[in-house]
């Protein structure tokens, strides 16, 4: 029995629970769609350059929605103290982190796939860049978001006001990734700026975030 299998079984368990209850996906979807609609009213197309606004709105929507997912991913492990059950297993505890990161990555990716065409339609954006640039942007940004968000979900697991505290901790840390993702998406939408410097910037921050998360996760499990 190895670390990879343990990670897979945890991911699969979360997937089964989600397909059975659809608690997370339904909530995240409604929240993401409401956010996009509200922004659509706040910035009606024609008043401001839609490509500039749409890239920012896409990432703000993803970050807002992500905070809900990150809060929930660890709280399901508190209902019957199943986190302790996981810690009793003869595996390095970082399998818990990786399993949760994978599940959150999947959830956020689903939201991105649904929100992206809606934003294009509502803001009447016709991207001129290469699609693989956007795909790379989304993958790099989502990796950074899910690692830091999952870590912070674990940090706040035993705090009472975690719904309030998570955005306060999460948003400042994630700012570099969001700025870079917005700029790279803007490059894809308009073709006026070079996305590669922003993609490299994101890759660097992903490296920092992943390293910090792996190093710090063990301490979050302490009572």
């Amino acid at each position: 029995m190895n670390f990879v299998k343990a990670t897979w079984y945890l991911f699969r368990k979360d997937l089964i629970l989600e397909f059975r209850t659809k608690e997370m996906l339904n909530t995240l979807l409604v929240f993401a769609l409401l956010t996009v609609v509200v922004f659509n009213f706040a910035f009606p197309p024609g008043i401001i350059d839609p490509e500039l606004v749409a890239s920012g709105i896409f990432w703000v929507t993803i970050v807002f929605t992500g905070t809900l997912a990150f809060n929930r991913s660890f709280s399901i492990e508190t209902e019957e103290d199943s986190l302790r059950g996981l810690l009793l297993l003869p595996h390095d505890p970082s399998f818990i982190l990786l399993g949760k990161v994978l599940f959150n990555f999947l959830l956020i990716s689903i939201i991105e796939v649904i929100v992206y065409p809606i934003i294009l339609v509502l803001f009447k954006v016709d991207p001129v860049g290469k699609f693989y640039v956007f795909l790379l942007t989304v993958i790099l940004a989502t990796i950074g978001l899910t690692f830091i968000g999952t870590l912070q979900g674990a940090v706040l697991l035993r705090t009472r006001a975690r719904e309030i505290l998570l955005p306060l901790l999460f948003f400042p840390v994630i700012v570099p990734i969001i700025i870079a993702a917005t700029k790279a998406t803007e490059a894809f939408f308009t073709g006026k700026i070079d996305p590669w410097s922003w993609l490299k910037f994101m890759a660097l921050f992903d490296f920092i975030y992943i390293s910090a998360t792996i190093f710090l996760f063990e301490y979050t499990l302490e009572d």
Partner: protein
Amino acid sequence: MTNSEVLKVRKLVKKYGEQYVLKGVNFELGKGEFVSILGPNGAGKTTFVKIVSGTTKPTSGEVRIFGKDVSEFLEIKRKVGVLSHDTFFYRNLTGLENLEFYAKMLGLDTYVAVKWARIFGMEKNLKKRFSEFSRGMKVRLSLARVFMAEPEILLLDEPFSGLDPSGVEKTLDIVKSHLDRSYILITHRLDIAVRMSDRILVMMNGKFTHEFLKDEFDIQTLQGVFQ
């Protein structure tokens, strides 16, 4: 550590901030021995169990299971089973899915999980969601989870809370039929401790304050300690 010792705890200290929860605890558990730990709430009993099972790190001191440090040898966790008031299961999974999850995590096949569920009379309830289980069923499913790993040391942390008298008796019968293993029982039930134990320890304020061997304890004696 002698050959018959399965667990040895030396100078165990646990601090939360400036507060000492365990104050230099020493403890040994022999092969096949049944030890009960009694004590008021907040004495440090559950913290002791969490450290022994490797889910909480001590501030200082050492825990050796079969001579190995639990923090260094992850595989040694297989030898320890924990039955707590919390079941560690997921409410929206069925009984079978819950057992299967832990079985797979331990590298066991599903049939092993089903076998242990059958031993504890749970085979007919395996397709029900865990949220539909009675407290007695939850405890029996937890026993299946614990025993399927074939642990040699069992830590029972208040396993009887919420059980009706017949549920307690059924659980005790199961334990009695597996007395070839070593047990640590944390309980407030003096009667159960007296019936089951080879040795009883009393913990107060993070220390073991009293120790009673097999022929030295009865309910009156233990009640006297707490008065």
